Every structure is written in structure tokens, then in C-alpha cells.
């Protein structure tokens, strides 16, 4: 895209000093800040960095700081001590200013605290220290940012292409011993076409017999430049893309995107639309978990559950097809509401489905969950500690399987979720069975939410009265996070008050969840590692975007 005329924040202070303004960027003239509003509280005021409180409702995060590049490790360390986890790293290319911005998002696994750390680098020599020693999860995010922006992260252990194609040297980087050379160890390329990787993920395994010495996931086989596409089209045009990132959880992904745009436009979505969003999102969550359940059992060598799962999922797809016209990539939510209202058949069918699904879950429990072979395959396999989750930014059922009740629906409530009575299932063992049980219990909880949403469903319109025909977001950045089926999905839109966003960042849960695989799988047996991988519930396009 042409960005030479962009001047979103020319008056930003030099990077070495901290920002004194309450908002990250001076408000654009079209969107003046309310003069009477008190300054938002700053939960990190005690830290030696100039953190500023930010209005969460307007921006989607609680506080931020802009620091010099040489302080980036110090900030990461102090946030680590505060118990925060790394969410994602975003590069923003400010061409007009000759600068590169690196935005570090942090979240707290236990309370509503989202922190944004920014630093600016000169565009001709963008270098910043790597924080992978503090947060190992930064490894992949930094590689990705290096891919996209050429920002060099000094001290990074392996700054090779992550989503972009590997260059020719890379294949010979780790030489595979030629035929006949005696070696007890060997390299096994699991994938990109392998039944257990559920798509085009490749895991380069260094094996000693069946023991994994080192596993290196190689991503990018299905990289579609979703973020770049976001920078090339209007908000409405990008909306269908959001269904295609994690196609199993399309509703929630669209929700995050329209949520971010609505947050920027300060649109009040009608309650009926929000209820239907919750309703369809939860149906989508169940269908996503069902696919995972079947595929996970397939990984463990049990074939039959897949067909049972698809049987139930079929009913959900039929329901959603009746409303949205699609069975997988719904694009049902619109900026300001929904594309159409639900009909009586959907409501009746959903009630029927809820009634049918409960006994089915019970049956799944007795058929699969309580099976001794199944339990023996999972108990104690692939333990992931809560600390490891935090360091890698793992979310969703992975972190809840490690005993942390982190659920975006609870910690940072969005939409009308506060109005529902549901539990966040948490299992503390951290093994594959815990993650399994979290998801099974989540399906039951989703059914509860669906029932309540059906009972409470208010009448009224499903679309905001007046959505601007040409959507331009006020300059600034806007975040919106949702609890997708695989964990925390967050959208960050950096706007320069134009029809197309300046930068779209998609923080996907699968990427962070898989990034801990390298550490978690070391020393495991191959089948156990595959059980672990299955319990992470990966969707490869969600990683590669």
C-alpha cells in the first residue's frame, strides 16, 4: 500500500523519552476526548517506567508506555516479575517518519490487565534486543516480525524465516546425515503432510530412537498474508477474511474484528445483536471443540468418535447455515450488528440441539473419557506448567488445563458475557488429560450460555441505526480480544484515519500455544508428543495466517 502520505503521529516525542499524554497518540480532531473524563487509573504506576493509564473501553488495553529500545529487556523483566504474559509482538512501519515501531502486548493471566509497550527504531537500521530470555514465547513473534519488517532482534537464537518461505540454505542448515553414516540419532520430518499434524505443519524432530531430543515446528506453509490483506482493503472488505483465519472458530474471530472497529467508532451494538453473537459464538465453540475431540481421538488411534462428533457438529452447522447461509466461514457479524436476524426455526432448532447434546456429552464421557486405555495415554503426558503457559503466552484450554482460570470472557468481559452465568472450567494437572477435560467441560458450559441466551434474547433491531457508509477509524490503535475456541484471539487495528487500516495485527492463540511445544516435548516419546500436540488443538492456518 502507499503510505508515503501518512502522518498519524508526527508529533510523537523522540523514542528515548516517555510519553506524558494519557492516550498513546494525540487524539485526532474528528474524535476529541471527552474533556470531563478523569484520567484512567494506572495499575502499573509503581514500576520505574512511565506507564500511563488508558481508557480500556476506548482502546482495549489498560496501560501503555513508550520506551527507548535499550530498555526493552528491563521492561520485559519487570513485567515478568509482575506476573504478566507476553501476548504478541507487532511491527508497525511508519514510513513517513522513517521509523519502525515495535509494539509488545502483555496480558495478565489472572486479572484484567493489558499492557502495551512501544518502542521506536530508526527505519534504516531497525535493531532491538530480543526478549526471548525473559519470555521464550517471544521467539516466534520476533521471528515473524523479522519476516515482515526486517527488524533485527539482537541476541535472538534463530532469526530465520518463520512464516515466509525458507531460503535454500535453510534446508541444509541442519545437515541430515547421508545414507550409511552410522549415527544413533536421526532427523525425522514430521509433516508437512502427516496425519497427526492436521494440516501443513512440519515439525523437524531430532530423534534418538523414539525419543524426541529436539522438536522444531516449521511454520508458514499456509501463510496467506492475512495481516497484509487487512492493510489493503476497507474494514468491510476485510471482514470475510476473519472467518478464514481459524475456520473452525469463524464466529469468534469475526467478533474480535468487528469489536475492534465498533470500539473505535464508539458504536453501541443493539442488545439483540450482542445476544445472537454470543449464541452463535458458543454454538461455534461447541462445533470447534467437537472437531478437536474427534481429531484428537484419531491421533490416539480411536476412529469411531470422529464420526459421532461430526454427527453432532452437523446439527450445529445446519443451524448456522440456516441463519448465515454458510457452514464454515460464516462472516455473519457486521460492523454494528449482524447481517440478518435469526428466525424461529433457528431458536427452536437450537433448543432442540441443547436438549440432545447433554445426553451426548454424557455418552462421550462414558465411552471415551472413562476408557482406561484413553486415560493411560493422557494422564501425566505432556505436562505444561502454569509458568510455561505464562512465558509463552499460551491461552485458552491450554492455560486453563494448567490451573489458571484465564478466560477472556471473564477476565476482560466483552459483548454481553457478563450477563451470563457460566463457569470457567479449570483443571490444575497441566497434563494432556487436563486440557481434554477443560474442553469437554467447556462444551457443557457453552450449552448453559446458549440456553440462557435463548431465554433472555431481547427483541429489537440487530443492526446499529446508522453505520457510517464510509468507515474511517479515528487515528490511534484499537484492540479487541475474544475468547476463541483455542484461546485468546486479539485484533489490533492501527488507524491513520483512512478508509483502510494502517496496520492490522491478528494475535492468534494457536501460534502461542504451539510455541511451547519445543520446550514441552523435549525428551518425550513420539506417540506421547503427538498426544501433547493433539491436546493443544492446533489449527495451522490460525498459526500461519
Amino acid at each position: 500500500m502507499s503510505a508515503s502520505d501518512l502522518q498519524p503521529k508526527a508529533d510523537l516525542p523522540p523514542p528515548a523519552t516517555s510519553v506524558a499524554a494519557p492516550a498513546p497518540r494525540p487524539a485526532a480532531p474528528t474524535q476529541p476526548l471527552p474533556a470531563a473524563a478523569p484520567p484512567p487509573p494506572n495499575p502499573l504506576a509503581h514500576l520505574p517506567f512511565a506507564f500511563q493509564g488508558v481508557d480500556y473501553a476506548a482502546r482495549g488495553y489498560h496501560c501503555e508506555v513508550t520506551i527507548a529500545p535499550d530498555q526493552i529487556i528491563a521492561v520485559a523483566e519487570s513485567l515478568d516479575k509482575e506476573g504478566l504474559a507476553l501476548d504478541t509482538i507487532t511491527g508497525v512501519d511508519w514510513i513517513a517518519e522513517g521509523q519502525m515501531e515495535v509494539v509488545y502486548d502483555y496480558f495478565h493471566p489472572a486479572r484484567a490487565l493489558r499492557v502495551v509497550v512501544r518502542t521506536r527504531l530508526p527505519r534504516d537500521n531497525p535493531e532491538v534486543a530480543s526478549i526471548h530470555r525473559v519470555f521464550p514465547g517471544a521467539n516466534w513473534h520476533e521471528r515473524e516480525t523479522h519476516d515482515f519488517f526486517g527488524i533485527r532482534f539482537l541476541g535472538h537464537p534463530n532469526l530465520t524465516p518463520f512464516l515466509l518461505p525458507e531460503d535454500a540454505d535453510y534446508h541444509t542448515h541442519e545437515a541430515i546425515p547421508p545414507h550409511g553414516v552410522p549415527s544413533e540419532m536421526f532427523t525425522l520430518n514430521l509433516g508437512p503432510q502427516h496425519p497427526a499434524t492436521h494440516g501443513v505443519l512440519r515439525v523437524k524432530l531430532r530423534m534418538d530412537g523414539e525419543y524426541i531430543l529436539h522438536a522444531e515446528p516449521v511454520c508458514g506453509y499456509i501463510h496467506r498474508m492475512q495481516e497484509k490483506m487487512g492493510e489493503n482493503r476497507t474494514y468491510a472488505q476485510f471482514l470475510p477474511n476473519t472467518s478464514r483465519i481459524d475456520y473452525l472458530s469463524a464466529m469468534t474471530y469475526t467478533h474480535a474484528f468487528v469489536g475492534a472497529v465498533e470500539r473505535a467508532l464508539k458504536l453501541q451494538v443493539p442488545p439483540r445483536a450482542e445476544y445472537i453473537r454470543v449464541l452463535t459464538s458458543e454454538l461455534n465453540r461447541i462445533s470447534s471443540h467437537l472437531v478437536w475431540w474427534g481429531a484428537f481421538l484419531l491421533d490416539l488411534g480411536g476412529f469411531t468418535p470422529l464420526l459421532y462428533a461430526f454427527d453432532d457438529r452437523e446439527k450445529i452447522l445446519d443451524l448456522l447455515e440456516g441463519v448465515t447461509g454458510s457452514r464454515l466461514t460464516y462472516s455473519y457479524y457486521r460492523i454494528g450488528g449482524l447481517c440478518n436476524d435469526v428466525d424461529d426455526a433457528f431458536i427452536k432448532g437450537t433448543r432442540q440441539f441443547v436438549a440432545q447434546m447433554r445426553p451426548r456429552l454424557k455418552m462421550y464421557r462414558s465411552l471415551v473419557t472413562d476408557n482406561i486405555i484413553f486415560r493411560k495415554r493422557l494422564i501425566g503426558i505432556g505436562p505444561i506448567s502454569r509458568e510455561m503457559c505464562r512465558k509463552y503466552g499460551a491461552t485458552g484450554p491450554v492455560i486453563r488445563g494448567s490451573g489458571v482460570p484465564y478466560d477472556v470472557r471473564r477476565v476482560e468481559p466483552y459483548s454481553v458475557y457478563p450477563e451470563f452465568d457460566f463457569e470457567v472450567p479449570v483443571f490444575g494437572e497441566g497434563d494432556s488429560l487436563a486440557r481434554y477435560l477443560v474442553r469437554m467441560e467447556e462444551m457443557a458450559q457453552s450449552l448453559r450460555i446458549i440456553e440462557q441466551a435463548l431465554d433472555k434474547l431481547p427483541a429489537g433491531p440487530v443492526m446499529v441505526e446508522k453505520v457510517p457508509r464510509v468507515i474511517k477509524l479515528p487515528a490511534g490503535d484499537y484492540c479487541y480480544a475474544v475468547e476463541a475456541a483455542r484461546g485468546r484471539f486479539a485484533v489490533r487495528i492501527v488507524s491513520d484515519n483512512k478508509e483502510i487500516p494502517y496496520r492490522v495485527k491478528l494475535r492468534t492463540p494457536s501460534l502461542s500455544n504451539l510455541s511451547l511445544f519445543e520446550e514441552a516435548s523435549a525428551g518425550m516419546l513420539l506417540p506421547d508428543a503427538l498426544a501433547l500436540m493433539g491436546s493443544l488443538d492446533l489449527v495451522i492456518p490460525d498459526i500461519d495466517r
Partner: protein
Amino acid sequence: MFDWLRHSVSAWWPEPLRLLLFLVGILSFVGLNAAYLVWVERKGAARFQRRPGPTEVGWAGLLQPIADAAKLLSKQLIVPAGVDTTLFRVAPLLMMSPALMSLVVIPWSPGLAARNINVGLLMIFAFGSINVMAIMLGGWSSRNKYSIISAARIVSQNVAYEIPMLLVVVTMIMVTGTMNLNEIVLQQAGAFWHWNIFRVWVNPLMPVTFVIFFTCMLAETNRAPFDMAEAESELVAGAYTEYSGMGFGVFFMAEYANILLGCSLATALFLGGWQSPIGVLPGMFWFLVKLYFLVFSVVWIRWTFPRTQFYGLLNLSWKILIPASLVTLILTSAMMKLFPA
């Protein structure tokens, strides 16, 4: 009809012709069964998974195995570069032939056995050990890492399960006093409580012995939940990864031939062979009823349980099955000494 068959093949025909007839009979029996057990497996799997299964080719998909065979036969036999060609080609045959050989001593009906030899059991187990070598060679010669992992698995798995199986068989030999399968079946004449599985006065653990035998049989034939060697979600297709066309087809058929053999053996050893439980209908009928019931159980288990983990499999053998089979062995010998029949 069966009586006529029995008389005709055992009395009237000269020996070489009789053998030829049995050869053809066994080959066609195994071939048809291998083909149609695939159909049974697919149909069974479909029923367990609440779907119709093959329906297109022939009535209820009954011609599907033939279509499959035609497809496999018409496919090119790819020998990948760098493999040990001889071993690669020999391995499928090596897997198929022991099952065929072993079926020679199975008594199908009174007097209907290709060879009634007095070391029948010993022969079956002698040939049965070749199987392991076949898969191992197939996996090793394929020059594929998945295949090699599979080959290593198969060896330790089969070694582990051969021991309890043999211990159980030794128990049976002690109880029956013979290795002649025909005689073992004859001893179980009368009503169904004379079957070895119910002969609790010889050894109160006799049903357990049967369960051990059946479990080991599943493991020996690499069937779920012990299908470590194939483990498609881990090793793609294990030792068979590089095989195409009929090379794979023979492996596939051999798997069913081995199931057939294992179930026949279990029928003869424990379930009274061709003995009728109620004294009606010919022996052949009862043999096949029992045989196919066991075969169906094998299919049933496969589509119900997930795969075990490898150490779980070895633990089961070394820590549970071998001690249990030793207990039955010692108990049987003690009982036989204390209460001689």
C-alpha cells in the same frame, strides 16, 4: 453336505489329490476371507460409526473387495530408490505364507484337516514367529524412518507377547496332554461345559487363560488397540508406508489371514472347535460360527478402543500377562498333581 465333503476328501481320494484339493481349498478360503473380512471390517466400522459403509459396488457393497483387489492389482508396484529390493519384495510374501502353512493343521470339522499331525500346535507357533521377521524386514528394507521405527516396535512387541501366549499354550498342552489339534477338539466333546474355556475343575483360571490368549493374539496380529506397527497417526502407515499396489495388498491380506488363524486356533483350543454346544447341526457350521464370532470381536475392539501407548503395551505384557500366565501354568500343574482325573 459337510459329511459328504469329509468322506469324499478323506477316504475316496488318493493322497496327492487330497492334498491338492486342500491346498486349493485353503488358498481360496484364505483369499476369500481376507477379501471379505475387509468388507466385514468396513461394514462393521461403518455400523459402529453410524454410517452405511460401502454400498455402491454390488448389493450392500459386496463386490467392493473385488473392486479393491482389481484396483490394487492394476497399480504399479513402486520400489523406491535406495531400498533393499530383494527384501522389500520378499517381505509381503514372507508375511502371507506362514499363515497359509499354519492353516494346514486346523481341524475344520471332524476329520476335515489338511494334515492331522501330532505336533500341530508346535508347527503353528514355529511358523507364527516368521511373521515378525516379515514385518521387520519390510520396515527395515523400506529405507523410511517411519518404517524403521515400526520395525523396531514390532520386534519388541512380538517378543513380549509371544511369551505369555506360549505359556498359555503350554498350560493347554498340559491340560490336554497333546499337541494334536484334532485330539484337543475331540477331548472337548459333549456339551459346552466340556470346552476348555469352561473346564474350571482343571484350572479355575481357565477363562482368564482364554482372555490372555485372545489379548496376545490381538497383539501378535498387530490389531487395535495394539496396532503400534501401523499407528497411522504416528507412523503414517508404519512398516507398510512405502508399499504400493499389491505389495501393500498382500500385507493387508496377510493381516486378515493371521486374524483368521489366531481366531481358528482360539476356537480349537478353547471353544471346542467343531464341537456343537447343543448337539445339532454339522461341525463345520459350529466351527465357522465360533470363528466368525471371534473375528467380529476383533473388529469390534478395533473400532471401539483407542491405541495404547507403547510402554503401556509392554507393561501389560511383562507386568500383567506374563505373571498371570505363569500363575495359570503353576496352578494347572498343581491341580493336575493334586486332583488327577
